[in-house]
Protein backbone atom coordinates (compact mmCIF):
# COMPACT_ATOMS: atom_id res chain seq x y z
CA UNK A 1 0.00 0.00 0.00
CA UNK A 2 1.45 3.33 -1.01
CA UNK A 3 1.42 6.38 1.23
CA UNK A 4 -0.20 8.31 -1.59
CA UNK A 5 -3.82 7.13 -1.66
CA UNK A 6 -6.43 9.08 -3.58
CA UNK A 7 -9.55 10.80 -2.30
CA UNK A 8 -12.89 9.85 -3.81
CA UNK A 9 -14.01 13.27 -5.00
CA UNK A 10 -16.45 13.74 -7.85
CA UNK A 11 -15.79 17.50 -7.79
CA UNK A 12 -12.11 16.87 -8.23
CA UNK A 13 -12.74 14.32 -10.97
CA UNK A 14 -14.98 16.69 -12.86
CA UNK A 15 -12.59 19.60 -12.65
CA UNK A 16 -9.71 17.39 -13.67
CA UNK A 17 -11.64 16.11 -16.67
CA UNK A 18 -12.38 19.68 -17.75
CA UNK A 19 -8.74 20.70 -17.35
CA UNK A 20 -7.49 17.66 -19.27
CA UNK A 21 -10.04 18.30 -22.00
CA UNK A 22 -8.98 21.94 -22.31
CA UNK A 23 -5.30 21.00 -22.64
CA UNK A 24 -6.16 18.28 -25.14
CA UNK A 25 -8.28 20.63 -27.24
CA UNK A 26 -5.56 23.26 -27.14
CA UNK A 27 -3.04 20.68 -28.27
CA UNK A 28 -5.25 19.60 -31.16
CA UNK A 29 -5.67 23.20 -32.27
CA UNK A 30 -1.99 24.19 -31.90
CA UNK A 31 -0.91 21.15 -33.90
CA UNK A 32 -3.59 21.81 -36.53
CA UNK A 33 -5.05 18.33 -36.09
CA UNK A 34 -8.49 19.95 -36.35
CA UNK A 35 -7.69 20.73 -39.97
CA UNK A 36 -8.72 17.69 -42.03
CA UNK A 37 -6.41 18.72 -44.89
CA UNK A 38 -3.43 18.62 -42.51
CA UNK A 39 -4.31 15.11 -41.38
CA UNK A 40 -4.94 13.91 -44.92
CA UNK A 41 -1.63 15.50 -45.91
CA UNK A 42 0.09 12.99 -43.66
CA UNK A 43 -2.02 10.08 -44.92
CA UNK A 44 -1.34 11.02 -48.55
CA UNK A 45 1.61 8.74 -49.24
CA UNK A 46 1.05 8.96 -53.00
CA UNK A 47 0.82 12.74 -53.15
CA UNK A 48 2.32 15.82 -51.50
CA UNK A 49 3.29 14.35 -48.12
CA UNK A 50 3.20 16.39 -44.90
CA UNK A 51 4.92 14.52 -42.01
CA UNK A 52 3.50 16.85 -39.34
CA UNK A 53 1.05 14.32 -37.86
CA UNK A 54 3.94 11.97 -37.12
CA UNK A 55 5.52 14.74 -35.08
CA UNK A 56 2.28 15.31 -33.21
CA UNK A 57 2.18 11.61 -32.34
CA UNK A 58 5.85 11.71 -31.35
CA UNK A 59 5.32 14.63 -28.98
CA UNK A 60 2.20 13.05 -27.53
CA UNK A 61 3.59 9.53 -27.11
CA UNK A 62 6.90 10.65 -25.56
CA UNK A 63 5.23 12.96 -23.05
CA UNK A 64 2.55 10.37 -22.22
CA UNK A 65 5.11 7.60 -21.82
CA UNK A 66 7.17 9.71 -19.42
CA UNK A 67 4.05 10.95 -17.66
CA UNK A 68 2.60 7.47 -17.23
CA UNK A 69 5.89 6.24 -15.72
CA UNK A 70 5.79 9.01 -13.15
CA UNK A 71 2.11 8.40 -12.48
CA UNK A 72 2.69 4.68 -11.83
CA UNK A 73 4.84 5.56 -8.82
CA UNK A 74 1.71 6.66 -6.99
CA UNK A 75 -0.56 4.08 -5.42
CA UNK A 76 -3.73 5.64 -6.75
CA UNK A 77 -4.97 8.64 -8.75
CA UNK A 78 -5.67 11.85 -6.86
CA UNK A 79 -9.46 11.95 -7.19
CA UNK A 80 -10.35 8.29 -7.80
CA UNK A 81 -9.89 5.11 -5.81
CA UNK A 82 -7.82 3.32 -8.47
CA UNK A 83 -6.05 3.54 -11.83
CA UNK A 84 -8.06 2.02 -14.65
CA UNK A 85 -5.25 0.79 -16.85
CA UNK A 86 -6.58 -1.41 -19.68
CA UNK A 87 -5.79 -5.04 -18.91
CA UNK A 88 -6.47 -6.92 -22.13
CA UNK A 89 -3.52 -8.10 -24.16
CA UNK A 90 -5.24 -10.39 -26.68
CA UNK A 91 -5.52 -9.40 -30.32
CA UNK A 92 -8.96 -10.47 -31.47
CA UNK A 93 -11.19 -10.00 -34.51
CA UNK A 94 -13.22 -7.02 -33.21
CA UNK A 95 -9.99 -5.14 -32.47
CA UNK A 96 -8.60 -5.71 -35.94
CA UNK A 97 -11.83 -5.29 -37.88
CA UNK A 98 -12.81 -2.26 -35.82
CA UNK A 99 -9.44 -0.63 -36.42
CA UNK A 100 -9.70 -1.35 -40.14
CA UNK A 101 -13.18 0.20 -40.32
CA UNK A 102 -12.14 3.21 -38.26
CA UNK A 103 -9.16 3.73 -40.57
CA UNK A 104 -11.38 3.73 -43.62
CA UNK A 105 -13.59 6.39 -42.05
CA UNK A 106 -10.55 8.43 -41.03
CA UNK A 107 -9.03 8.29 -44.49
CA UNK A 108 -12.39 9.11 -46.05
CA UNK A 109 -13.08 12.26 -44.06
CA UNK A 110 -9.82 13.26 -42.41
CA UNK A 111 -11.44 13.36 -38.98
CA UNK A 112 -11.13 11.09 -35.99
CA UNK A 113 -13.21 11.47 -32.80
CA UNK A 114 -11.20 14.11 -30.91
CA UNK A 115 -10.44 16.49 -33.79
CA UNK A 116 -13.87 15.96 -35.33
CA UNK A 117 -15.46 17.16 -32.13
CA UNK A 118 -12.97 19.95 -31.34
CA UNK A 119 -13.10 21.33 -34.89
CA UNK A 120 -16.63 22.55 -34.20
CA UNK A 121 -14.80 25.50 -32.62
CA UNK A 122 -13.91 26.61 -36.14
CA UNK A 123 -17.55 27.28 -36.92
CA UNK A 124 -17.77 25.63 -40.31
CA UNK A 125 -20.22 22.87 -41.24
CA UNK A 126 -17.98 19.82 -41.64
CA UNK A 127 -17.22 18.93 -37.99
CA UNK A 128 -20.88 19.23 -37.05
CA UNK A 129 -21.98 16.80 -39.76
CA UNK A 130 -19.09 14.44 -39.02
CA UNK A 131 -19.74 14.45 -35.27
CA UNK A 132 -23.46 13.86 -35.74
CA UNK A 133 -22.73 10.90 -38.00
CA UNK A 134 -20.09 9.60 -35.60
CA UNK A 135 -22.59 9.71 -32.73
CA UNK A 136 -24.94 7.82 -35.05
CA UNK A 137 -22.18 5.24 -35.40
CA UNK A 138 -21.82 5.05 -31.61
CA UNK A 139 -25.53 4.38 -31.27
CA UNK A 140 -25.45 1.80 -34.06
CA UNK A 141 -22.65 -0.10 -32.33
CA UNK A 142 -24.40 0.19 -28.99
CA UNK A 143 -27.50 -1.37 -30.58
CA UNK A 144 -25.47 -4.16 -32.17
CA UNK A 145 -23.79 -4.96 -28.84
CA UNK A 146 -27.06 -5.01 -26.92
CA UNK A 147 -28.66 -7.33 -29.50
CA UNK A 148 -25.63 -9.62 -29.38
CA UNK A 149 -25.63 -9.78 -25.57
CA UNK A 150 -29.40 -10.36 -25.48
CA UNK A 151 -29.16 -13.28 -27.91
CA UNK A 152 -26.27 -14.75 -25.93
CA UNK A 153 -28.36 -14.57 -22.75
CA UNK A 154 -31.34 -16.15 -24.50
CA UNK A 155 -29.18 -19.01 -25.76
CA UNK A 156 -27.78 -19.56 -22.27
CA UNK A 157 -31.29 -19.78 -20.81
CA UNK A 158 -32.65 -22.05 -23.57
CA UNK A 159 -29.59 -24.26 -23.17
Amino acid sequence: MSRHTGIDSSWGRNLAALAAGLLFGLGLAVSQMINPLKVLGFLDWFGAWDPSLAFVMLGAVVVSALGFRLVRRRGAPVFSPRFEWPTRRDIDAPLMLGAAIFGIGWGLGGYCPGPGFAAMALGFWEPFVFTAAMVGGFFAWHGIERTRLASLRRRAVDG
Partner: protein
Amino acid sequence: MTEFTPVSALVGGALIGLAATLLMALNGRIAGVSGIAGGLLSSGRGERAWRWLFLGGLLGGALLHELIRPETFALREGFPPLLLIGAGLLVGIGTRMGSGCTSGHGVCGIARLSPRSLVATAIFMATAVITLAVVRHAFGVM
Protein backbone atom coordinates in the same frame (compact mmCIF):
# COMPACT_ATOMS: atom_id res chain seq x y z
CA MET B 1 -0.40 20.76 -50.15
CA THR B 2 -0.14 21.47 -46.44
CA GLU B 3 3.24 22.61 -45.20
CA PHE B 4 5.43 20.76 -42.74
CA THR B 5 5.12 22.39 -39.31
CA PRO B 6 7.40 20.38 -36.98
CA VAL B 7 7.50 22.83 -34.07
CA SER B 8 3.76 23.41 -33.64
CA ALA B 9 3.24 19.70 -34.22
CA LEU B 10 5.62 18.76 -31.39
CA VAL B 11 4.24 21.43 -29.06
CA GLY B 12 0.64 20.45 -29.76
CA GLY B 13 1.53 16.81 -29.35
CA ALA B 14 3.23 17.52 -26.03
CA LEU B 15 0.06 19.28 -24.82
CA ILE B 16 -1.95 16.22 -25.77
CA GLY B 17 0.52 14.04 -23.88
CA LEU B 18 0.21 16.33 -20.89
CA ALA B 19 -3.57 16.07 -21.03
CA ALA B 20 -3.39 12.29 -21.10
CA THR B 21 -0.97 12.26 -18.17
CA LEU B 22 -3.24 14.57 -16.20
CA LEU B 23 -6.35 12.48 -16.78
CA MET B 24 -4.54 9.35 -15.59
CA ALA B 25 -2.78 11.03 -12.67
CA LEU B 26 -5.93 12.73 -11.37
CA ASN B 27 -8.77 10.45 -12.48
CA GLY B 28 -7.10 7.19 -13.35
CA ARG B 29 -8.57 7.17 -16.86
CA ILE B 30 -7.22 6.72 -20.35
CA ALA B 31 -7.67 9.81 -22.52
CA GLY B 32 -9.25 8.01 -25.44
CA VAL B 33 -11.94 10.20 -26.99
CA SER B 34 -13.96 7.39 -28.57
CA GLY B 35 -14.04 5.59 -25.22
CA ILE B 36 -14.91 8.69 -23.25
CA ALA B 37 -17.63 9.81 -25.67
CA GLY B 38 -18.90 6.40 -26.73
CA GLY B 39 -18.93 5.31 -23.09
CA LEU B 40 -21.65 7.87 -22.40
CA LEU B 41 -24.18 5.52 -23.97
CA SER B 42 -23.63 2.86 -21.34
CA SER B 43 -22.71 5.08 -18.40
CA GLY B 44 -24.51 5.26 -15.10
CA ARG B 45 -25.02 8.31 -12.90
CA GLY B 46 -21.54 8.99 -11.52
CA GLU B 47 -19.90 8.33 -14.86
CA ARG B 48 -21.52 10.90 -17.12
CA ALA B 49 -20.54 14.31 -15.75
CA TRP B 50 -16.78 13.98 -16.14
CA ARG B 51 -17.20 12.68 -19.69
CA TRP B 52 -19.28 15.68 -20.74
CA LEU B 53 -16.81 17.99 -19.04
CA PHE B 54 -13.88 16.43 -20.86
CA LEU B 55 -15.68 16.82 -24.21
CA GLY B 56 -16.63 20.35 -23.30
CA GLY B 57 -13.01 21.06 -22.48
CA LEU B 58 -11.97 19.62 -25.85
CA LEU B 59 -14.20 22.08 -27.62
CA GLY B 60 -13.27 24.88 -25.22
CA GLY B 61 -9.55 24.40 -25.68
CA ALA B 62 -9.86 24.56 -29.44
CA LEU B 63 -12.13 27.58 -29.13
CA LEU B 64 -9.62 29.31 -26.87
CA HIS B 65 -6.92 28.80 -29.47
CA GLU B 66 -9.22 30.03 -32.18
CA LEU B 67 -9.86 33.25 -30.24
CA ILE B 68 -6.18 33.86 -29.47
CA ARG B 69 -4.85 32.89 -32.90
CA PRO B 70 -7.74 32.87 -35.39
CA GLU B 71 -7.60 30.39 -38.27
CA THR B 72 -4.09 30.10 -39.56
CA PHE B 73 -5.09 27.65 -42.27
CA ALA B 74 -7.53 27.56 -45.18
CA LEU B 75 -10.68 25.55 -44.54
CA ARG B 76 -11.51 22.69 -46.88
CA GLU B 77 -14.19 23.56 -49.37
CA GLY B 78 -16.63 21.52 -51.41
CA PHE B 79 -16.23 18.21 -49.64
CA PRO B 80 -19.22 15.96 -50.41
CA PRO B 81 -21.51 15.89 -47.34
CA LEU B 82 -22.61 12.30 -48.00
CA LEU B 83 -18.99 11.16 -47.92
CA LEU B 84 -18.51 12.95 -44.60
CA ILE B 85 -21.60 11.25 -43.16
CA GLY B 86 -20.25 7.90 -44.31
CA ALA B 87 -16.90 8.75 -42.74
CA GLY B 88 -18.55 9.64 -39.44
CA LEU B 89 -20.58 6.44 -39.33
CA LEU B 90 -17.49 4.31 -40.03
CA VAL B 91 -15.46 6.14 -37.40
CA GLY B 92 -18.26 5.79 -34.87
CA ILE B 93 -18.72 2.07 -35.44
CA GLY B 94 -15.05 1.23 -36.01
CA THR B 95 -13.72 2.97 -32.90
CA ARG B 96 -16.27 1.25 -30.66
CA MET B 97 -15.73 -2.16 -32.25
CA GLY B 98 -11.98 -1.72 -32.06
CA SER B 99 -12.01 -0.30 -28.53
CA GLY B 100 -10.18 2.90 -29.38
CA CYS B 101 -9.00 5.59 -31.76
CA THR B 102 -5.92 7.74 -32.40
CA SER B 103 -5.87 9.07 -28.84
CA GLY B 104 -6.76 5.86 -27.01
CA HIS B 105 -4.69 3.45 -29.08
CA GLY B 106 -2.36 5.74 -30.98
CA VAL B 107 -1.20 7.89 -28.08
CA CYS B 108 -2.03 6.23 -24.76
CA GLY B 109 -1.78 2.66 -25.98
CA ILE B 110 1.55 3.13 -27.70
CA ALA B 111 2.89 5.09 -24.71
CA ARG B 112 2.14 1.97 -22.63
CA LEU B 113 3.54 -0.33 -25.35
CA SER B 114 0.23 -2.18 -25.42
CA PRO B 115 0.31 -4.96 -28.03
CA ARG B 116 -3.40 -4.39 -28.80
CA SER B 117 -2.80 -0.71 -29.45
CA LEU B 118 0.30 -1.25 -31.55
CA VAL B 119 -1.63 -3.66 -33.78
CA ALA B 120 -4.74 -1.47 -33.91
CA THR B 121 -2.72 1.63 -34.78
CA ALA B 122 -0.83 -0.15 -37.56
CA ILE B 123 -4.12 -1.37 -38.99
CA PHE B 124 -6.03 1.89 -38.92
CA MET B 125 -3.04 3.77 -40.33
CA ALA B 126 -2.83 1.27 -43.19
CA THR B 127 -6.52 1.35 -44.10
CA ALA B 128 -6.56 5.14 -43.79
CA VAL B 129 -3.64 5.54 -46.20
CA ILE B 130 -5.17 3.11 -48.69
CA THR B 131 -8.60 4.75 -48.42
CA LEU B 132 -7.19 8.20 -49.04
CA ALA B 133 -5.18 6.98 -51.99
CA VAL B 134 -8.35 5.62 -53.56
CA VAL B 135 -10.52 8.65 -52.71
CA ARG B 136 -7.97 11.27 -53.67
CA HIS B 137 -6.00 9.72 -56.51
CA ALA B 138 -8.43 7.26 -58.06
CA PHE B 139 -11.57 9.38 -57.63
CA GLY B 140 -10.03 12.84 -57.42
CA VAL B 141 -11.92 13.91 -54.29
CA MET B 142 -9.89 16.48 -52.39
